C-alpha cells in the first residue's frame, strides 16, 4: 500500500517566470531541477526571524534555495507542492548520537562509536565509521531528521576524552570535517579517571601541556598522548575546534567554565542537568548548553537538581540552548521534536524551541551554512509538516535534504506495508 500522500504532490505547469518576484535570481532559474513549495508557513529560522512568513513560497533550484517570496512562479517542469498553509521548517537536528555509527545498539560488531584501547586518543575520529547506508540513517531522514552530530562515546576501557565527531547530513553525503571533540566529566566518568572527578581536569591539563609542548622530553610511559594525538589536540587548541563537555552537576559545570576560560577553549556543555543553577555564569561565559528537556529525575548524584524547566530557565537567562536527547541511541534522534515540544509546555518560547533543534545546533557546531535555516543561496534543507512541527502528532509530508527531495519510505514503512496487508486479510499469525 502506498501511503505517501501523493495528492499533495502534483506536477504543475506554470507560465513563464514572474518578473520581480525572483529579482536577480531570475537568470539562475532557467536550468536544472526545480521545486516550488507554494503557500507555506515558512519558518526560516534565520537570526532576525521572529515570526513565520505566512502564505509564502520557497523555490529550490539546483539544490539551493533560489527564492523565498509570495506568488512566485516557476519554469516549466517545476515540481510544485501546494503546502496549503502547512509549516515549512529547516530539517530537524537528530541530536548527539550514533546514527550511522551503529546498526544494533548492543551488538558489538555493528557499534563503532567508542574506542577501548585503554589510552587517551583525542585523534580518534568517529566519522570514519559513518555508514550513510545504515538503516538508521534512512529511517530518521524519513522522519524529518536531516542532520545529526556524529558523537563518539567514552567507554569503559577507553578514555574520558572520547574523540572527534562532526555534523553530518543524512542525505548520503559525507560528514563534515571533524571539528568537535568530546569529553566526559563527572561521576559516570570516574572509572576513566582513577576513581575521582578531580583527576579529570588533572588529566585534561596534562594532555594540553603535552600538546602545547611537543618537544617536552618525556619517557614513553609518562605520556598520555601519542604523537598524532598531540598534533590533533594542538590544532584544536589553536583553531576553532569545539570542545563538548558532558557534565551535569552545577559544581562540575563551574569548574568546566573556569577550565575553558583558562585554557581558552570553545566549550559547549552537554547534558547540563543542573545547568539552570549556573545559568548566569554560562550566559556570561557565552557557553552554549545542549539539554534534554525530558530529563527531570535524579538519575545520579550529579543530577539531583534535574527539572523539566531546565531549557526554559537557561533561555530566560540568555544562554544559547540546543536540544538533544540524553541517550545516544539511534531511535532517540526521532525524539528531539518531542523534547522541544515538552520544553515549550514547560516554559520555553516556541520559536526558541524550534531554533534549538534547527539553527542553534547548526551554529554551535559550525554547520550553519548547510543546516538549520532557510535562506536564499543555501542548500535546500526543508521539511513540510502535516501540522505543528513540535507536535508528536505531526509527521513530514515532504523532506528535502542535501538539496534533493527525499523519499518518505524507509525500512520501517516497508515492514508496515507488508504486515498491514497480512493483518487486513486475517493472516497475521
Amino acid at each position, binding site marked *: 500500500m502506498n501511503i505517501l500522500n501523493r495528492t499533495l504532490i502534483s506536477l504543475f505547469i506554470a507560465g513563464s517566470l514572474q518578473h520581480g518576484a525572483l529579482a536577480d535570481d531570475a537568470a539562475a532559474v532557467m536550468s536544472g531541477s526545480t521545486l516550488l513549495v507554494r503557500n507555506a508557513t515558512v519558518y526560516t529560522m534565520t537570526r532576525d526571524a521572529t515570526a513565520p512568513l505566512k502564505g509564502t513560497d520557497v523555490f529550490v533550484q539546483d539544490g539551493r534555495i533560489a527564492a523565498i517570496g509570495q506568488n512566485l512562479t516557476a519554469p516549466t517542469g517545476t515540481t510544485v507542492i501546494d503546502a496549503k498553509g502547512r509549516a515549512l521548517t529547516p530539517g530537524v537536528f537528530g541530536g548527539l548520537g550514533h546514527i550511522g555509527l551503529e546498526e544494533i545498539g*548492543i551488538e558489538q560488531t555493528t557499534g563503532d562509536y567508542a574506542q577501548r584501547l585503554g589510552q587517551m586518543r583525542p585523534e580518534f575520529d568517529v566519522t570514519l565509521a559513518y555508514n550513510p547506508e545504515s538503516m538508521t540513517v534512512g529511517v530518521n531522514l524519513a522522519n524529518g531528521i536531516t542532520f545529526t552530530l556524529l558523537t563518539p562515546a567514552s567507554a*569503559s576501557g577507553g578514555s574520558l576524552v572520547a574523540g572527534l565527531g562532526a555534523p553530518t547530513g543524512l542525505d548520503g553525503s559525507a560528514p563534515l570535517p571533524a571539528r568537535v571533540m568530546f569529553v566526559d566529566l563527572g561521576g559516570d566518568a570516574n572509572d576513566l579517571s582513577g576513581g575521582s572527578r578531580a583527576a579529570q581536569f588533572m588529566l585534561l591539563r596534562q594532555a594540553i601541556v603535552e600538546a602545547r609542548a611537543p618537544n617536552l622530553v618525556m619517557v614513553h610511559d609518562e605520556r598520555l598522548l601519542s604523537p598524532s594525538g598531540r598534533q590533533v589536540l594542538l590544532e584544536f587548541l589553536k583553531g576553532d575546534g569545539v570542545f563538548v563537555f558532558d557534565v551535569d552537576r552545577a559544581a562540575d559545570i563551574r569548574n568546566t567554565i573556569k577550565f575553558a576560560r583558562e585554557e581558552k577553549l570553545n566549550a559547549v556543555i552537554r547534558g547540563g542537568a543542573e545547568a539552570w543553577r549556573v545559568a548566569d555564569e554560562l550566559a556570561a561565559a557565552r557557553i552554549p548548553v545542549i539539554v534534554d528537556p525530558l530529563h527531570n529525575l535524579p538519575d545520579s548524584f550529579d543530577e539531583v537538581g534535574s527539572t523539566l524547566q531546565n531549557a526554559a530557565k537557561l533561555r530566560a537567562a540568555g544562554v544559547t540552548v540546543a536540544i538533544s536527547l540524553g541517550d545516544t541511541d539511534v531511535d532517540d534522534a526521532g525524539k528531539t521534536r518531542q523534547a522541544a515540544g515538552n520544553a515549550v509546555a514547560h516554559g520555553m518560547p516556541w520559536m526558541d524551541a524550534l531554533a534549538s533543534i534547527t539553527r542553534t545546533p547548526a551554529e554551535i557546531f559550525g554547520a550553519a551554512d548547510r543546516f538549520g535555516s532557510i535562506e536564499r543561496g543555501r542548500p535546500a534543507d526543508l521539511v513540510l509538516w502535516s501540522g505543528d512541527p513540535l507536535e*508528536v502528532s505531526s509527521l513530514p509530508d515532504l523532506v528535502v535534504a542535501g538539496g534533493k527531495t527525499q523519499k518518505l519510505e524507509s525500512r520501517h514503512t516497508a515492514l508496515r506495508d507488508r504486515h498491514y496487508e497480512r493483518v487486513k486479510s486475517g493472516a497475521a499469525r
Partner: protein
Amino acid sequence: MTSRRPLNLALVASLSLALAACSATGPVKSSKDSKAPVADAKAVETSTGSPYPSTYKPAPSTPTLIRGATVLVGNGKRLDNADVLIRDGLIAAVGTQIEAPSDARIVEGQGKWVTPGLIDVHSHLGVYPSPGVDAHSDGNEATAPSTAQVWSEHSIWPQDPGFEAALEGGITTLHVLPGSANLFGGRSVTVKNISAVTYQSMKFPDAPHGLKMACGENPKRVYGNRRQMPSTRMGNVAGWRAQWIEAQEYARDWKQYETRKAAGVKDLRPPKRDLRLETLAAVLRGEILVQHHCYRADEMAIVIDMSREFGYRVSAFHHATEAYKISNLLAENNICAAVWADWWGFKMESYDAIPENMILVDAAPGGCAVVHSDSAEGIQRLNQEAAKGMARARRMGLDITPEHAITWLTQNAARVIGLDSKIGTLEVGKMGDVVVWNGNPFSVYALTEKIYVDGALRFDRAAPRAQPESDFLLGQPAYEGVIR
C-alpha cells in the same frame, strides 16, 4: 548522561560508559486456552493467604463535580460538554446536567479534557529507582534463570522520585515488575500512585499478582555468558517447560492434600512449601497473570503453544515489538500487546520494531493494544506515546479517535493487570481515579491540571506542593528552586 532505558540496554555492562552509568551494579538492569476472563483472577497470594497485605486506604475526599468538560470515558466513548461526579471515592455519575451535591467541590471544565487515571502496566519504578546507584539495583535477581519465588514488591523503594513525576503525567496506577534477566523473573505487583513510606500502603487492594517471564536475548545472554543454561532460545523454552512440569506436580500434591483435608482425613502433613513453585502453581490455577516480555513474533507464537501445553494463559506480551506480525493470532488468543511507540534498533530482537506496531495490533478484530513505558521518562508521557501512534495511523488512512486511543492507556491496561472491573474507565461504581487535562491529552503541550486518586485530589497544578514528596529530594540543596 544516563540511559533512560536501563532495563534492556544495560545488560551489556561492558559496552560503554554511557551504559555503565546504569549498569555498573551488575549484569542486568535492563530493560487462550481457558477462556476465563482475566478479571476473574483472585488475589490469593500464597497457600497460606496474603502475608504482605495491602494497607492502602483512600485519602479522605469531598465530593467533586467536574462540569462541562470533554470526557473520554476510557471504554471508547466520548462525551462533550459533560460532567463527572466523584463521590465517596467512586465515580458516582457521568453525563450532562448532573446536580452537584450541596457539599461538592465544583471544577469548571470548559476547555478541559477528563480521562480516567492512566495505567502503566510495565514499570520498574521503585525497584530501579532514582538515583540509579549500585545500592538501588533491586529489579533483577539475576542469580538463577528461574526466580519465580521473588516478589518485586519486596524491592520497591517508595521514596523513588519517579513516582511523583509519573503522577504529574497522569499515572494513578502502575504495575511494577522484576526485570527480564531471568526466564521467570518473579512476581509483579500493582500499586496506587500515592506518596507512602511503605509499599504496603501503596499496594492495590485485592489485585492479582503478575508473573514476569522473559523471552529471547536477555536470559540467554545473562546465563549464556556464565556458561550456564539457557544460552540459546531453545534453552529458554526447555527452561520454561521444566519449571512448568515441576509446578504441575506441586499443584497436584497440594490439591490432593486439600482434598483429603476437606474429606476429614486426620494427621495429614501438608506438602513442603516451595516459594518458587507456589508462584508457578498459582499461575496454573489462574490466580496469577502472566506478563511475558517477548519481542519477536515467532517466539510469542512458541509461548502461546507452551501456554496450551501446560494449561495457563498469557495476559499480555510486553514490548512485543513484532506483535504487528501476529496481530490476528494475539487477538484470537485474547492476549494484549503492551508496546512502545518508537523504540527500535537497540537490540537485534527490536530491529523490526515499527511505530505502527500499536496500530496494527489494534487493527485486528478483537485486538488489544496497550501503551506501556518500561521507563521512568516514558511513564510521564504515555499520552504522547499514544499520540505518535495516532499520527502514524492517520498516515495509513486510519482515523484513531482520542476516545479510542485512550483505551490503550486505561481500559485495556486495566484488563492486562486484571483490574478492569475496578479502574480504567469513568463508569459509575469504578474507583475515582480521574485526570483533568488542560486540553486534548494527545498533544505535546497538554499538561495535567488535577489528578484524583479514589476521589482525593492528589495533584493540583494550580496549587503546587511546597516540597517534594520523595524523602530523597527533601532538603537537597541542588533541588531547591525546582519546586515552583
